[in-house]
């Protein structure tokens, strides 16, 4: 049993100058064969391995990661967590995740700092109002806490928003989900890694997949820079690189990988204590525990794996920020960065079997995957272990692109974050 983390263990270890902490996870070399291999050591992949070990009694599992765990979109996103989605399938999926979030720190014995500070979405035109009301009604009937706020209530909940009706696109109202909020992104990856490691999962970093070996319609293992690793079940959770792995297996996916940028300001004392998102005036902002304003920008329209986006996107985002929060004009951008997001045509994810037996894909999370991390891992583990989807991810299959039964969060809410 590893060190239990608590204030008491911190005090105890202070006496030995913190020299006796154990590794949060080991760094093993790969074995020749595993029962299941998860490709991709981000939050989703590590969670998948964790739940495979914990709920499906699999003991011989590896997570292979080409860089360092949590170094992709997990460590690059703006950490917004909410479940107020329009469609039943999405609401089911994201609220499943949200419920796990609510006890995750205790389950992992790792403080993921899930902070239910509320997420507010703003309406700036009459169609926004209709759409947000539609969503709020659907949420309420789906048992998701969402309320519609008028302009005054928006202002009351977040006083620094410019709710003057004289601005270009005045705030006409908004929806609020109070259970929604933010979490510490790195902690999610590290916490799942520590938990999975403790149950015997091998977390293998700097291990890049070079090929997927198939025997006819069945998967046999992966070629990596650390050699061939055999497995009957392979779950791919490679985010922006999903298509690259799919191509190795001779599959094509309905994905495009695009740059998504984010930025933080210099840290300041608390000034905004909720998360505010606006689709029409494209800006969303929260403040980290460290005090930085965390601001998400939009995607570029071209495919890129360079982890860089165009300056116009950042500039446009800050235009919108100053439109809604003129007081931030003299705040300074400290750091900006980009990630690669894999986007489905309907802006909903894929958690699905494929035409290759034993090969599973969890991808297409676009700009909003972080919030789903625990739920996605849980449901993907279920899908891999049982070779069939859980009812909560049944709608997120690959066949929907053939049948036309899309889960179109895109059309429903301009930009789905």
């Amino acid at each position, binding site marked *: 049993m590893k060190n239990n983390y608590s204030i008491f263990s911190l005090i105890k270890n202070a006496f030995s100058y913190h020299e006796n902490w154990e590794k949060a996870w080991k760094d093993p070399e790969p074995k020749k064969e595993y029962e299941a291999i998860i490709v991709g050591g981000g939050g989703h992949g590590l969670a998948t391995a964790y739940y495979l070990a914990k709920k499906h009694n699999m003991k011989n599992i590896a997570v292979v990661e080409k860089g360092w765990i949590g170094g992709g979109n997990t460590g690059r996103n703006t950490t917004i967590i909410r479940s107020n989605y329009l469609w039943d399938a999405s609401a089911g999926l994201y609220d499943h995740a949200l419920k796990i979030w609510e006890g995750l720190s205790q389950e992992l014995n790792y403080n993921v700092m899930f902070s239910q500070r509320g997420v507010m979405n703003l309406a700036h035109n009459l169609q926004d109002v209709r759409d947000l009301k539609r969503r709020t009604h659907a949420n309420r009937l789906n048992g998701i806490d969402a309320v519609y706020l008028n302009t005054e209530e928006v202002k009351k909940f977040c006083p620094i928003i410019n709710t003057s009706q004289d601005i270009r696109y005045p705030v006409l109202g908004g929806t609020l989900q109070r259970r929604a909020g933010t979490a510490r992104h790195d902690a999610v990856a590290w916490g799942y890694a520590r938990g999975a490691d403790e149950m015997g999962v091998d977390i293998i970093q700097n291990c890049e997949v070079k090929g997927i070996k198939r025997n006819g319609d069945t998967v046999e293992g992966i070629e990596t820079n650390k050699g061939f690793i055999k497995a009957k079940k392979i779950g791919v959770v490679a985010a922006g690189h999903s298509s690259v792995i799919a*191509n190795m297996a001779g599959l*094509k*996916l*309905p994905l*495009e990988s695009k740059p998504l940028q984010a930025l933080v300001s210099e840290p300041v004392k608390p000034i905004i204590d909720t998360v505010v998102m606006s689709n029409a005036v494209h800006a969303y902002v929260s403040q980290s525990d460290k005090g930085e304003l965390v601001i998400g920008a939009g995607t570029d*329209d*071209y495919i890129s794996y360079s982890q860089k986006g165009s300056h116009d996107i950042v500039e446009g985002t800050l235009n919108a920020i100053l439109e809604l929060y003129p007081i931030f004009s003299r705040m300074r951008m400290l750091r900006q960065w980009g990630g690669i997001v894999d986007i489905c045509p309907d802006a909903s994810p894929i958690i699905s079997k494929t035409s290759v037996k034993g090969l599973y894909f969890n991808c297409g999370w676009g700009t909003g995957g972080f919030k789903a991390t625990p739920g996605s891992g849980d449901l993907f583990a279920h899908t891999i272990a049982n070779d069939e989807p859980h009812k909560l991810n049944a709608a997120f299959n690959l066949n929907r*692109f053939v049948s036309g039964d899309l889960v179109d969060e895109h059309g429903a809410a301009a930009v789905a974050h």
Partner: protein
Amino acid sequence: MFLINCPFCGEREQSEFKAGGEAHIKRPKQPTELSDDEWAEFLFMRKNIKGVQFERWNHAHGCRKWFNIVRDTSNDQIKAVYKMGEKPPVK
């Protein structure tokens, strides 16, 4: 931000252009003859290449012409530009 050499206008800032995704996906001449699978392949399935990709761009805030670009998506370097209907000049 890229500089894109529009084959009709010359070198211009990326902000004048819109990307149109993977090139050379020909719209089927007889869609009704296709199976659901084949139609889905045309509609949604993409190579989404990491590396040298052939793609469509539109000079949206310029001459409004569509044309093709060869670009390495791993570092965004543009290798070549060519007009619609022309054969790719590289590879």
